[in-house]
């Protein structure tokens, strides 16, 4: 193994769903899940999570803080289908029904290091005014059949969305062997580029 060089690279993501800004809304919780391509496989950690319900901060206006940890490690052979985190935020409406407050997605940062991302969130719009009213009244807002569609482009052209709030995420990204496989994602590091053919003195 040491001689052959790595055949996969690893991407470790830790971080947290820090906070959200949803003016007017309160008591929200969020779900996250990862969407990744065929060549990716999670090796450790949780692919999906659902956070606690958070209430609005009294000090900072509009801030809803979750600080909900994310920790996952992927392995892959191909940067195509780089993982994306899909967030969906839910909360009660005026009648107490649990409705969706926003969907959003962002790619896991490519380069190692600490990254902060603020994703704009959006919700699908009702197709008509009447439906808007009834959905509001009944507490059954339009939702995506699968939140993962927000991570893909296919089929989105049929939907209409309205933006709604922001979620701030913090990622700490560590990669392993990306450089050895020829994917230079980060800032130049001290190790230098080692070709995959070079024998690696890896400890067994």
């Amino acid at each position, binding site marked *: 193994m040491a001689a052959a060089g790595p055949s996969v690279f690893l991407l470790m993501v830790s971080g947290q769903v820090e906070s959200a800004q949803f003016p007017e809304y309160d008591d929200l919780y969020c779900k996250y899940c990862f969407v990744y391509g065929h060549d990716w496989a999670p090796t450790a950690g949780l692919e999906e999570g659902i956070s606690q319900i958070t209430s609005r901060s009294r000090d900072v206006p509009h801030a809803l803080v979750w600080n909900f940890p994310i920790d996952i490690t992927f392995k892959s052979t*191909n940067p195509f289908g780089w993982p994306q985190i899909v967030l969906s935020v839910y909360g009660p409406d005026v009648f107490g029904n649990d409705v969706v407050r926003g969907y959003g997605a962002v790619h896991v940062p490519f380069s190692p290091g600490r990254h902060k991302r603020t994703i704009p969130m959006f919700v699908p719009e009702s197709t*008509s005014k009447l439906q808007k009213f009834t959905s509001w009244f009944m507490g059954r807002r339009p939702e995506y059949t699968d939140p993962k569609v927000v991570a893909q482009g296919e089929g989105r052209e049929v939907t209409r969305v309205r933006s709604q709030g922001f979620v701030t995420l913090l990622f700490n990204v560590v990669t392993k062997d990306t450089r050895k496989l020829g994917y230079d994602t980060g800032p130049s590091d001290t190790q230098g580029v080692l070709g995959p053919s070079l024998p690696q003195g890896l400890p067994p």
Partner: protein
Amino acid sequence: MDSKEEKVKIITEEFVENDEDADVGRKKKTSKTQRQKGKKQLCTAGPEEMVSGKPHGGSQQGPAQEDPDPDTHLLSIPAQRGPRSLPPLPSASRTGFAEFSMRERMREKLKAARSKAESALLQEIPTPRPRRLRSPGEKELETEFGAEPGKETKRTAQDNDSQSYSRVKFRDCVRKVKSKPPPPPGFPSAEEAYNFFTFTFDPEPEELEEKPKAKSRERANQEEAEGEEEEPPVQGDEEELLNGRNEEDFLLGLDHGAEDFLVMRPAYYESVHVQLQKERELLFIPSRLTVPTSKKLPENMQPRFLEDEGLYIGTRPKVPRATQNIMENRLLVQEPDRRWFGDDGRILALPNPIRPSPSRPPALTQEQDIHAELETLYKKAVRYVQRTQHMIGSGDFPENFQLDIDISGLIFTHHPCFSREHVLAAKLAQLYDQYLARSQRNKAQFLTDKLQALRNAVQMGLDPEKSHSSVDITPKAINEYKSEIRETRKLRDAEQETDRTLLKTIIKVWKEMKSLREFQRFTNTPLKLVLRKEKVDQKADEEAYETEIQTEISELLEEHSEEYEQKMEEYRTEYQQWKAWKKAQRAKKKKKKQAAEEHHDEEAEEPPPGDGPVKPIPPEPIRQAVLEQEVRERVARSRRRPGEPMLVPELSLAGNVTPNDQCPRVEVLRREDVKRRSVYLKVIFNDKEVSRTEGRPLGADFRVHFGQIFSLQIVNWPESLMLQVYETVGHSGTTLLAEVFLPIPETTVVTGRAPIEEVEFSSNQHVALDHEGVGSGVPLSFEADGSNQLILMTSGKVSHSVAWAVGENGTPLIPPLSQQNTGFRSALKRADAISSIGTSGLTDMKKLATWAAESKLDPNDPSNAPLMQLISVATSGKSYVPEFFRLEQLQREFDFVSDEELNRAKRFRLLCLRSQEVPEFRNYKPIPAYDREIMDKVFQDYEKRLRDRNVIETKDHIDSHRAVVAKYLQQVRESVLNRFLVAKHHFLLTDLVIEEEVPNISILGLSLFKLAEQKRPLRPRRKGRKKVTAQNLSDGDIKLLVNIIRAYDIPVRRPTTSKFQQPSRSSRTFRERHAASPTTHSPTHSADYPLGQVLVRPFVEVSFQRTICHTTTAEGPNPSWNEELELPFRAPNGDYSTTSLQSVKDDVFINIFDEVLFDVLEDDRERGSGIHTRIERHWLGCVKIPFSTIYCQARIDGTFKIDIPPVLLGYSKERSVLAERGFEPVRSLSEGSYITLFVTIEPQLVPGESVREKFDSQEDEKLLQATEKFQAECAFKFPNRQCLTTVIDISGKTVFVTRYLKPLNPPQELLNAYPNNPQATAELVARYVSLIPFLPDAVSFAGVCDLWSTSDQFLDLLAGDEEEHAVLLCNYFLSLGKKAWLVMGNAIPEGPTAYVLTREQSHYLIWNPCSGHFYGQFDTFCPLKSVGCLIGPDNIWFNIQRYDSPLRINFDVTKPKLWKSFFSRSLPYPGLSSVQPEELVYQRTDKAAAAELQDRIEKILKEKVMDWRPRHLTRWNRYCTSTLRHFLPLLESSRGEEVEEDHRAELLKQLGDYRFSGFPLHMPYSELKPLIEAVYSTGVHNIDVPNVEFALAVYIHPYPKNVLSVWIYVASLIRNR
């Protein structure tokens, strides 16, 4: 007080100012204030303190400060919130004020407090002041103590002043501090303000008294502020005492101070005027008016319109005039020195790049045949070759084209660094060059010679003796000669004069230069002019001179004399005329005189004498002396005097340049400047820089030698070649001096032959230098008085040569002329032409030429050049017409790897295939990171499939016809699949977003009704399970649940004792025929079975995907298990997508076995101590349910007929007495055994949606609308009933369903079988149809899409689902003369399906086309459970009866109340033609092929059986096998009926010693795999008795059209001992 006042001002403003203002102000102020500090303390604080006394407490001070300014309370209130807590006030009454709800109480208290305060106030008022005044005087850190007092000042000021004043003050405070302007009129000065503040304390208490109550509320609020203000004094006092606390105070004060300051500002308002004023300062609004041209151009420049001068100017992009004006105005104001404007005074603009028409040729519609020249041709991929690629058509011209540009050097004829001497030297050199050039040409000499020759010729012409050779010299010719001589002489004289003046100028310049050198006492240039005198022979010279003059004079004389003659002639004629006129006049006069005597009045008519011709003046004769004088003068002017030596100037560089140390400083400076300069050239090819020379330093002689040759390997047709001259001064930037355009060489100019040419350039650079350098573009004078100024511009010459290179083999690397016509540029240029003459015109050069002529193309437009050239080529006859059209010329540029290389990359290929969703790779993961990790075998399957697409392989498919069919099916499947893949990526909103439907009234009502519903109803309804979308599933998530409830009428064991018993009446055979007349059974019962003996011990085994589960063993022929079996489900390739699940072909086998115990104890003695039995299981029958049915139906619930082999040796179907009695009427119609099942998938999967593709149709639009309407109506009434009007045929078109029904002839063979029995024929036909293999569309086409193939297609494919079977059967029945309909309805287990209904004489029969069975209408075990609609050949009837069960409905379609017909009176049947063929052609199946197939199947099955028994020896009993083989044809001919007894008898006869268990299987033949599966599912191979033997026989009965009926007889034999 002045200083004081100023200071107060400073303080006030300092607090009011914003931070930034304060910073500015503070620095200045602090310096000021510090100076005055000491003084202040004495003069302000001191006295006042003495006057007022020391403050005693903060509490009393508060009101004193606030009350004077009641009007500003509102302003100050917000500021007075403070974090500091109020210290308890001495006067308790004050605290109560905060609660203003208790106003009354407060008032009273207030009065009391007031009286107190009044007394205290007077003493307290001044307290803040000393602090305030002192605090700025101390240090910065103390300022905050003065903050509140400062505000107070402000407030008081505001009290009096208008708001605007305060605003202005705020804003301008900094300025005011600096300049102290007089206060604006109407406003108090700062002094006044201060005084006001200082002296208004006395009336304050009074004011307080006047309106305390009104203010009580405000004051209540203000109390807080009081607290605030309390502290500073305390601190201030302390501070006076303890300076050491300053630091702390500062810290304390800081946080409060800033807050207070910020808040204290009043609302900001700016008057409109001020606003406008400010805006005017900041904003610039460019005017919309047109700018006069003179403004845009440099001074004294006339606008120059290049277009008028005939140069090409492209059309400018259209910009509205106003916008342009705005832009111009803006540019003029913002960057006047940047050259935004062109010579014509307009903004520089590139030509409009937008073409009026697209360059892509118009898309050709399919109807038109494509022009031959636009047809795409396959062109083999060419390896990317550098450099040649987009000289278009590079494939034909593989050479490189090369242009050699030799830049040898650069000479400046003027340079800013030229000294005066240089200027002269340059002039001299120039003149000398001119001189050299002239002398080289020596035109004067040439003209002299010519003159001589002409003279000779004239001489000869005049001399007749000599002119014998040239007889034809006429006088006219001589005249011509003479005139030529005249001309030549004039020319010569001019030349000679120029020569002479040139020489004179050279000498003059040289003299000037010499004098300059003397004057400046140094020499800059090595230039030296030497005048060489050439001695001439004076005499000869004089002679020649004289003769020359003489000849000239004589010639002139001659000329003049000729002229004179001529004039004389003229004179004479004129004179004659005049004379004649005169005479006439005179004659007239005479006449008149005579007449006058008679008529006096005529005299008046006499014309005045002046009217006649003037008397001509005779010309003066020429005088030789004058002429000679003239000639001599001229000659003297233009020619060397005789005897004067010939002067030949020679310019040499032999002179010495004075070294630097001898030069004056300015000159040294100049020389150093020159040294710092260097020059380089850029070579610009087609507006792109291609190379540049090295920077070479400028020599002292202003020559730069480059000597570089640039070889340009070009791919584009050269359009322009330009050199840019850049000069670098020191290390500072480079300046572009000039641009030199080089001509593109002719194609004949090749390297080596090209002369070095010089191209002049000049720059309009303006440089003025501070040393000896004369600069350029600046006036310069050589005269002492500065007159005679001249302006020299930087100029120079580049010597270069441009030529086409010569290749290695001597061929010039020149692009062929025609090449450029095909260049992509020209291809694009022609775009305009396309619109006018069409694409075909492009290849017609003549047409193009006429178009070009008509459209008046500008021939000078460089963009039209290729077109022009093309046209010129075309009109000259020879033309090269490209034979192809290329859309993406540059595509190859972007190919970074060749295609082969790309294809070789396995990883890339894998990625491609996966993204194309090729089935083999659809879910391949993960793709390895390296090529080397990808096994070659990954592609094997795929490649094999690709290969096999055209090759028919007979290995998998045992008979060739099936192979062909399978191939065809595969192709249809692929095409359909592709359509599905497209459709799959087409989303609707509902796919992505879950949205509630808009509730209508009924739903609302229903939901309201639901509210009233009982929470726990007595009869609960089943609630639907949650459906799971199939995408996020993995192996093991899905389970198949099979609930086996009970079975009826299981065959029972036949006691072995009755070996030779003849069949009795009581033992019923299977397959009792009872189509019309149920047989009545006498209630006799078998005597063979003693009561209580176990007849059969059945159990059920479910096998699915080779997983087997079984129930416990029950007893009796009507067992009840009620057990749930759970089988795991694995999707193929782990792909749980809908399409993949739909195409799962696996079947669920539900096998019923009989568990038989055999006593194996051989020794009876041991019977007491142990039981040794062997369990054997005997297969009784099975039910087969395809997984796709379960998947699509979600659940299957019902009673199924068990498929029991026709012959089940050892078993018979016995009825218990009870059963026969009790259920006779019900059961009488039924035959066979039944099992009740409930099958479902857990979790429930969402079945695939049908494709929402709108298929095109050839049906009439009206008909289609009618179908939609019909369907909508039906669906509205009975949403659950199937209504079918249109279907999709195999080519994907919508077809009206009745077109499928048409009488079609069944095979003649079948008709001949029972010529007299129509019922038997019908059954045979049904059997034939059922023998065609069943293959659901969902499986074959991976998606719910019902494709209906016509009957001939169906027979060709030999596979289809219910519809095809039903259609074929219905067509056969129609052809047999029956009344037949297609029944669309629901059946178990198929779900929505198609059956066939026939009408016999008195009743209806329902036929299952897939099994060939038929049922009476009232058969309870009929699998058809509901009827949606009936379809006949000419109409569709929808069931609108209350019930849909066939048992309960009336099939009489003529009743419109029961059946809604599609075609009715309002829409009559239009007579639709059928899609079915006229006739079906059946070819007889090759019997030999069938026999061969039979053998092969048998062999394969035997091998399989042996494979399944890996641990046991498998013996084959040949004898039994052959017996069975003989028996099978009998079964076929009788279709399994009425043969059992004979068979049994025969078997027993032959195999007397064996215990035999086995059965024949019957199935239609499609592939080998189902046969193997069927054999496997029977479990015959599972017997592990050591001495077991097997028998396996296969029989294939061929029916026409390759329909094969396969019989497999499997048996195990155990020798009885």
